[in-house]
Each structure stands twice: as C-alpha cells, then as structure tokens.
C-alpha cells in the first residue's frame, strides 16, 4: 500500500508537468482553433534559457522567474511574427506552420546550445520524507506544488481580473469582443505568451529527471496532447484533471504492469488519443460543437 501511494504521488508530479503543457495547448486551441505542435519545442527553448541563466551564476528561483517573463515575451513574439499572418488561414495550414516552427526551434536549440545532453538542477532536494510509513520525495511534492501553483495563478488571472475577462472574451467571440472595444489581436498574442509561460514551467520541472537536450520535450508533448484530447481540447479543467490522471495512470502501469514497463508508455498515450478521438471526440470535459456547413 505504501508503495502504491508513493507511485501515485510521483505520478501526480509527472501528471502536473503534463497538465501544464496540456493547458498551454488548450489555451491556444480555445483562442485560435489551432493545436500548437511547437508548444513542446518552445518549452524546451525556454528551459535552455533557464539553464543559461543558472549557468551564469543566477540563483535558481531568480532564473525561474526571469525565464517565465522571457517565455511570455517569446510567446508573444512568436505569435506576432509567425502565427498572426495565418489568423484567417485554414486550420490545416496553421497546423503546418506550427510544424515548421517545431523543426525550426529544434534546430535553433541544437545550434545555440549543441545537442549535448546537459544536467538541469532541481529546485528541490531529492531527500525522501517519511509520512506515516509512506516515503515521499520532496522533489515530487515540490513539482506538484509549482505546477498547481502556476495553474491556480492562471485561473485567478482569467477569473478575477479585467484582463482575464478580455482574454476570455477575445477567445470566445472575437468579432463581438472587437466591437466591445477588446483589443483582440493583443489578447491573442497575450494568450500565446501565457501558453509559453505554462510550457516553460513544464520544461523546467521535467528537465531535472529527463536531462536537457533538444528532443527532451517530445514524449512530454505526446502525453500533454493525450491529456488535452482526453480533457476535451477546449476545457482547461479537463486538461488539468486529464493531465494528472494520465501521469498517475502511466506511472502505475509502468510500475505494476511488466508488459508496459517504461517502453510502452508512448504507445499507451497514442492508444488513449485514438480511442478518445474515435469514441468521444469531445473528450471527458469538452462540449460537442455543432459543425458549420
């Protein structure tokens, strides 16, 4: 039992990482109907930025905050420079653009930082703590706290501030919002910025365990896509819940089902994506949209 609880907690920690990236994907999909396949690579680049800051002697938490700020700016820039011209293009075209961005950012990271694998420090010690016979790692608890903290902050921003209302309005109905005086273009750019911030959190949280290299976010992206699809692609709450669930599920499967182990985690995520899309494309929390003919 103790072992089981331990697996659940460490599953929640990786689940929080998946949920952050899944939320980033949902945020952009809600606003623009586009799935940003480059979200993982954007997260990877921001993690390299954090690594560079830390490498230059900046303290971990200062680097963390600076990286989030830079990620926001980077997300806005990517939207303005690359995605904005495709605002009215078919979704398929915009998706191809994000694939172009994916390849470009991957190459950029290899160019600037080389493909050599780098160790990324963790903010939390790996010291185990014992709570009534169950041994938790401080690292797992910290990762859970950071991911959920960022998600809560974002929720507060969307729910309780005027900017948040404008952001939601711009995503919900751009034409009406524009008439009501909401600067829709700027809000979409801000949405990309916030998504990049979420991605940066997931990158910095996952890097200590998978190590930093230009391809480190590929599996995380697939899990995040699975979580986003499972949660309904349009539902932030769905992405959060599905992300955490997926983290726990994959961890338990890995620990207790020999056949799955660590090799078959990606195919499990694939199976989840296919099953949800085929059986219930709206996911667990999404709403079924009527299709315009």
């Amino acid at each position, binding site marked *: 039992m103790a072992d089981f609880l331990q697996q659940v907690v460490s599953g929640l920690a990786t689940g929080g990482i998946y949920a952050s990236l899944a939320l980033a994907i949902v945020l952009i999909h809600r606003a623009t*109907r*586009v*799935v940003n*396949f480059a979200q993982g690579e954007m997260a990877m680049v921001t993690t390299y930025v954090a690594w560079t800051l830390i490498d230059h002697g900046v303290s971990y938490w200062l680097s963390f905050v600076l990286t989030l700020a830079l990620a926001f700016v980077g997300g806005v820039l990517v939207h303005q420079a*690359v995605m904005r*011209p*495709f605002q009215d*293009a*078919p*979704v*398929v*075209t915009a*998706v*191809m*653009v994000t*694939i*172009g*961005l*994916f*390849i*470009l*950012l*991957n*190459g*950029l*990271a*290899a*160019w*600037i930082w*080389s*493909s050599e694998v780098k160790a990324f420090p963790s903010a939390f010690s790996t010291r185990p703590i014992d709570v009534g016979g169950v041994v938790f790692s401080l690292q797992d608890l910290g990762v859970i706290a950071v991911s959920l903290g960022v998600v809560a902050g974002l929720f507060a921003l969307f729910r309780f501030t005027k900017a948040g209302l404008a952001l939601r309005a711009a995503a919900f109905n751009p034409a009406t919002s524009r008439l009501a005086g909401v600067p829709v273009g700027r809000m979409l750019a801000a949405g990309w910025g916030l998504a990049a911030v979420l991605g940066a959190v997931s990158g910095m949280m996952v890097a200590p365990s998978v190590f930093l290299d*230009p391809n480190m976010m*590929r*599996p995380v*992206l*697939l899990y995040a*896509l*699975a979580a986003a*699809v499972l949660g309904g692609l349009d539902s932030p709450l769905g992405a959060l819940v599905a992300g955490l669930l997926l983290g726990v599920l994959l961890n338990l499967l890995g620990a207790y089902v020999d056949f799955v182990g660590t*090799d*078959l*985690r*990606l*195919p499990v*995520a*694939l199976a989840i*994506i*296919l099953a949800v*899309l*085929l059986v219930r*494309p709206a996911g667990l929390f999404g709403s079924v949209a009527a299709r315009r*003919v």
Partner: protein
Amino acid sequence: MTHRSRVKAVAGGGVLLAAFLTVLLLPGFVSDFRASELAYVAIYAIAILGLSIVTGFSGQISLGHGAFMAIGGYTTAILVADHGVTDLWTIPVAGVVSGVAGLLLGVPALRLTGLHLALATFAIAVAFPSVLKKAEGVTGGSQGINLFGVEGLTGAIAGVDVFGRHLTFNEWLYYLSWSIFAVLGVSAWLLLRGRTGRALRAVRDSHVAATSVGINPAAYKTAAFGLSAFYAGVAGSLFAIATSFVNPATFPVALSLTLLVGAVVGGLGSLWGVIAGAVFVQFLPIWIGKLPEIEALPASVREIANEPGIPSVAYGAAVILVLLLLPGGAAGVVRKLRTGL
C-alpha cells in the same frame, strides 16, 4: 483537338521525354556517391507523392507518414533477412502491407476532422518507434535488422548486370528507385487528372457539395489514405534496401516531418512539385554543408553553415516562408510563371 491543346500536349510530351532522358543518362555524368544521393531523391519523391495525394487532394493532413515508411521498410527487411525473399519482390508486398494499414487507419480517420487527424497521425509518428522496439521477436528490437551481405539484397557487393550493362549498387539503386517513381507518378497522374481527382478535390473543398452530386466522401477519403500509405510503404521498402539496415531510429518523427516539409515546399497537390520537394529535403543539408567552401561568402555565414541544427532551422524557416509567401510551393511558382507568359 484544338490547336492550343495540341501544342500543350506536344509540349507536355517534350517535357516528359526530356525528363526521362535526363534521369536515364544522369548517372553517366555524376559520381557513384551522387547517384546514391539521387536515388534517395526518388525515394523521398515517392513518399511525398503519397503525402501529397492525401493532404493536397483529399485535404487530410498526415504527420505520420514516416510510420507507414517504417511498415514498408520492416516488411522488406523481415522478408529479405528472415525468409530469404529477393528484395525486388518485397517492394510491392511492402506497399500492400502498408496500404492495408493505411486503409485500417483511414476508416477511423473519416470520423476525424483535419486537426484531429493531424493529432492522431502525429501521435503515431512519435509512438511507432517504441512499438518497433517492443516487438523484438519480429523486428529485432533496438538492434534492428541488417540486410547488408544477405543473399536476397540485389547487387550490394558485386553490383548487378542489367541488359548487358554492369551497374554498381548505387547505380542500380538509382535506376530502380526512379523507375518505380516513374510508374507510381504516372499512375497517380492518370488516376488524379480526371474524375477521381475532381471527386477528391470536391470532397476536400466541401463535403456537403460533394455528397449532393453523388460522391461518397467516406469511400474516397479512405481510398486516398490507403493509396497514400501504399506509396509511403513502397518508399520505405526502397529506403530499407538503400540503407541495407533498419532499426527504430531509421524512421524517427523527424522523417515524418521532413516529408511534410517536402510536400509543402514542392506544392501540395502537384505531381511535378513532389520532385522539387524531394530534391529540397535531400540536398538542402548537403548544400548548406558546402557553403563554407564558397569563398565569396562572408566569413560569418561560412562559419554558421557548419554548426549543428542549421539544416533544421532552414527546413523550418522554409516551411513557414513558403506557406506565407508562396502557398502553391515550387509548383505554384512554375504555374504562375507559365500563366504570366
């Protein structure tokens, strides 16, 4: 036949003949190594042609065609290495196996919109290498399957004699790949120029309109996906023969994305464009690698060209710029030039 269309037909025939002669005689003028590079162009062209059929004509986006190439490549590798089949005969088998897989995926794909299909096929591309690794009994796991020196691999060691002419392995590979590309390209052209192509484009542009004129969108979309997977499977088979070795890393996510780069740069939905796209993906890294030798360039450019990651930066930037500035790709540029004249 009007005068105009007769001129067009003659011009088209002339272009085709010139292309045929170029492909036929080129190996006489280039090195053996260059011949193998050009063989890869044909292999990419076959796969991109498949992708172009499914994305350009039926409007479904696939980010997972590398996985279909893997199915074709492994089919060939297993048949040649484990069952002693001669490589040539495995090529159609590889195409059919992959095509059937495509049909199986094509049926559920009907329920998916463009975006969902992109998600599903991307997931396949990312997860497929793990499946290959796990199915160790059949695929050899991470070790992969070696074809070099296996009896069924034609001409790998001593070359081949064809019509009384001795060809090295690379020349053989070149003629084999380009012949297959020619056959598949002409078949695609015959299939897509008339009724079928029109029906597919109608399905792409409006499901409802297509249905109302009696086209069955489901049948056409599934068939397009299956056909496209067949092409990818054939390309994968040739790829396995060309590299004489397959393992899960032979068909990475990057391969699927590279095919999309080629399709976009060449121009989606154009049959000539696929050659341009294939040349682009095969030679861009090679050309970039040559930049440092050009003395006229500024030192900074020559230094950067050798850095790792630069080819990917160029691929990615090319996709974005082409979609932004030349949505028709290379084929679109040619079309514009022709109508402009």
